[in-house]
C-alpha cells in the first residue's frame, strides 16, 4: 500500500480518536457538577447601575458634597455624588449615581448611564448613550437623544400647540355588535373572526369612519387606525402599523408589528409596544397614577426609534432599540 495513503489513514484515525479522547476527558471534568449558568436570584431593576455603584464605589469614586462640571469639560469614570450635580453646556460625562438632583446643560454628552434620587433636567441637544433613571422625575429638553429613561414621571416641556377638540360621540363596537353596526363604520363584517370569549380578529385593514369605543380585545391582521377621540377598553394589536388619532384613549395594551403612532393629547394606561418606530404626539399622557387596574407603571417601547413630542408625560419607562428623540 502506498505509504502516503497509510499515513493519511493513520492521521485520520488519530484525529478521530483524539476527538473522542477529548470528549471523554470533558465528561470526567463535568462529572458531579451542577449547571450554575442561570442566576435564579436575578430581579430586573431599572436603576441597577446606580444601586451597584452606590454599593461598590471606592473612596476615589465618591464625591461627598455637590459637584459641578464646568462647560466643555470632560469627566471620565463612574462617580457616586452624595449631593447634587450640575453639568455645564457641552460637558462630557461618563456615568453618575447622584443622591440629589441632576441638571445637564445644553449639548451635554453622557457616554455611560445616569441615575439620580432627585429630579433630573436634561438640557437641549444632550445625549445619553446608556440608561437614565430617576426616583423622582426626568424632564427632557428639545432635541435630546437617549436610549432608555425611567422615572415616576418622564416629561417634555409643553409648547403652544392647540389641543384637538374633544370628541363625545363614539360608536360602540363589542362582541355583541351586529353586522349592521360594523357596516355603519365601513368595516366588513365578513372579515371578523371571533377567536375567544373576549377577542376578535379582523382580517385586513381596520379603518372605521367615525370615532369608536372598542369594548373587546382586537387583533388586526393588517393596519389599524382609530379616528380621533376613540377609546379602546381592551388590548389592541396590529400586525402592520397602528395609528391612534388625536385624543384617543387606550385603557389596555397596544402592540404593533410595524410603526405605532399616538396622536396629540392621547392617553394610555398600560403599555405601548411597536416593532419598529413609535411616536408619542404632542401632549400625550400616560393615565393618572392609580387609574390603571393592572400596573403601577406604564411603558412605551419601540423596536427602532421613539419620537417624543412636546408636553408629553409618561409615568414609567420609555425605551427604544436605537434611539429616543425629543421634538
Amino acid at each position, binding site marked *: 500500500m502506498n505509504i502516503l495513503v497509510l499515513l493519511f489513514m493513520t492521521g485520520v484515525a488519530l484525529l478521530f480518536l483524539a476527538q473522542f479522547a477529548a470528549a471523554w476527558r470533558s465528561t470526567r471534568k463535568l462529572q458531579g457538577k451542577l449547571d450554575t449558568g442561570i442566576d435564579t436570584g436575578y430581579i430586573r431593576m431599572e436603576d441597577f447601575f446606580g444601586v451597584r455603584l452606590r454599593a461598590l464605589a471606592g473612596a476615589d469614586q465618591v464625591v461627598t458634597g455637590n459637584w459641578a462640571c464646568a462647560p466643555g469639560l470632560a469627566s471620565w469614570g463612574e462617580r457616586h455624588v452624595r449631593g447634587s450635580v450640575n453639568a455645564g453646556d457641552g460637558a462630557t460625562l461618563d456615568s453618575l449615581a447622584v443622591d440629589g438632583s441632576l441638571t445637564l446643560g445644553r449639548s451635554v454628552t453622557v457616554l455611560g448611564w445616569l441615575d439620580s434620587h432627585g429630579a433630573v433636567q436634561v438640557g437641549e441637544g444632550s445625549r445619553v448613550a446608556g440608561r437614565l433613571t430617576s426616583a423622582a422625575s426626568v424632564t427632557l429638553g428639545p432635541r435630546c437623544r437617549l436610549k432608555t429613561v425611567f422615572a415616576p414621571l418622564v416629561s417634555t416641556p409643553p409648547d403652544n400647540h392647540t389641543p384637538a377638540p374633544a370628541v363625545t360621540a363614539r360608536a360602540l363596537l363589542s362582541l355583541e355588535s351586529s353586522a349592521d353596526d360594523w357596516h355603519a363604520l365601513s368595516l366588513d363584517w365578513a372579515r371578523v373572526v371571533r377567536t375567544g370569549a373576549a377577542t376578535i380578529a379582523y382580517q385586513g385593514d381596520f379603518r372605521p369612519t367615525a370615532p369608536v369605543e372598542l369594548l373587546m380585545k382586537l387583533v388586526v391582521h393588517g393596519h389599524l387606525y382609530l379616528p380621533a377621540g376613540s377609546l379602546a377598553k381592551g388590548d389592541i394589536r396590529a400586525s402592520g402599523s397602528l395609528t391612534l388619532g388625536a385624543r384617543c384613549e387606550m385603557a389596555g395594551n397596544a402592540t404593533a408589528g410595524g410603526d405605532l403612532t399616538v396622536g396629540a393629547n392621547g392617553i394610555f394606561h398600560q403599555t405601548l409596544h411597536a416593532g419598529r418606530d413609535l411616536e408619542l404626539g404632542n401632549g400625550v399622557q400616560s393615565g393618572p397614577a392609580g387609574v390603571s387596574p393592572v400596573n403601577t*407603571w406604564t411603558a412605551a417601547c419601540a423596536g427602532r426609534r421613539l419620537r417624543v413630542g412636546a408636553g408629553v408625560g409618561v409615568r414609567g419607562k420609555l425605551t427604544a432599540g436605537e434611539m429616543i428623540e425629543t421634538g
Partner: protein
Amino acid sequence: MVSLAILTLYAIRQYALALNRLRPGRRRYSASQENAIELSGYYMPRLTVIVPMHNEERVAADILRALTECDYDPDRLQVIAANDRSSDRTAAIIDRFAARHPFILPFHRTSGKPGKPGVLNDATPLITGEILLLFDADYIPGRNLLKLLAAPFADPAVGAVMGRVVPQNTGESLLSSLLCLERAAGYQVVQESRAMMGFSAQFGGTVGGVRMEALEAAGGWNIDTLTEDTDLTCRLILKGWKVAYVNRAECYEEVPASWSVRSVQLSRWVVGHTDCFHRFALPILRDRRLPLAERIDLFFLLSGYLTAPLLLLSWIASFLLFFIEPGPLAPGLGAGAAFIGCQMFGNQATFIEMGLAAHMDRARRQAMLIPLSLLSFFASTTSICAALLRYYRSRWFGGPADAWARTQRSRPVAP
C-alpha cells in the same frame, strides 16, 4: 433514495434554522419577544401557576420554595399545588407550604385518569388567573421568571408562551451531559430561530403558560393524549392564536440520568407527538391564514420523530447495497453516497445546532462532548423506532397503546 430525499429536506430545515440564528447583527425579534424583555414587570395580569405532582417528595419543596420567592405581586398570584394520587410525602409537603403562604392552594386528587392532562383538567375550575403558567415538579423557577413569562400576553394575539428549559444536573451522568447539549440546541437555536422568523413556538407544557381565554377557545386540555402540550399548540394555532417564545425566560429542570428513564420519557413524547402529526398536520397545511413557510415548518416539526425509522432504513439499505452485485464499484458508491448523505445531511445539521448552542451559551466544556452525542443519537433512534412500532401496531391492529408514564427523578429526598 426516497428516504435520502426526505432526510435532505429535514437537514435543509435544520441548516436554515441554524444559519438564521447565526446571522450576525440580526436583531429582528418578534413583538412578543421584545415585550417579554422590555415590558416584564410593566404588564402583570392575574396569574395562576399549576404544579402537577405525583410522588414528588424529592423535588416538591424546591419548586414551592422557589415560587414563594418570586418577585410577582402575591395579590395577583395563585399557585395550585396539584397532588395527583401520591403515596409518598408529597401531600404533607404541599400542606406545609399552603399553611404558610395563602396564595398556595393545595389540590389533592384521589381519582380520575392518571397523568398530567387529567390533573390539569380537574384543576381548571379552581383557576382564578387570566393567565395559567405551568411548571413540572422538578423545575426551579428563578425570581424574575413569572414576570418574563407574563409580559408577552400584553399582545392580545398571543395565546401561549414558552420559556427556555436548562438542565441543572449536567454532570450527573454522561447521558445528562449529552441531554444538556440537546436541550441547548432545541431552545437556544431551534426555538429561538423559529421565533425570530415570526413562527409560533412549540408550547412544551412546562416553563410556559396559556391564556385561559385561548385555552377555552381551543377546547381545554385533551386528556386522551400523551403530549397535551403539542396537542394544545396545534389547536391554538388552528384557532388563530400565536405561541410566543422567550429565550431569556430560563428555568432549571432535571433531565434523565439513566438510559432506561430516558427511553420511557422519549417513548411518551414519540407516541404523543406522532399522534398529533396524524390529527393536525393536514389541517395546518391547509390553513391559509398561516404563512406558507410556517405551515411547512410546522409539518416538519410534527413529523420529526418519523425521520428515525427513515435513518434506520437508510443505514440498513447502505449496508445491504454494499454487498449486492453487480460489480464492486457501483453498490459501493451507492452505499457510500447514501451513508454519507444520511450522516452529512441527516445528522450533522443537528450536531451543528449543538455546537452553535454551546458556543452561544459559552459552554466550551460541553461543546467538547459533541462526538459522544453519537451514543445518545443511536440510543434515541432505537427508542424512537421501538415506540413508533408499538404506536403503529396499536393504531393499525388495535394492540395495547402506550400509557402515560411519569419521568423518574434522581434528586435526593429533601429532609
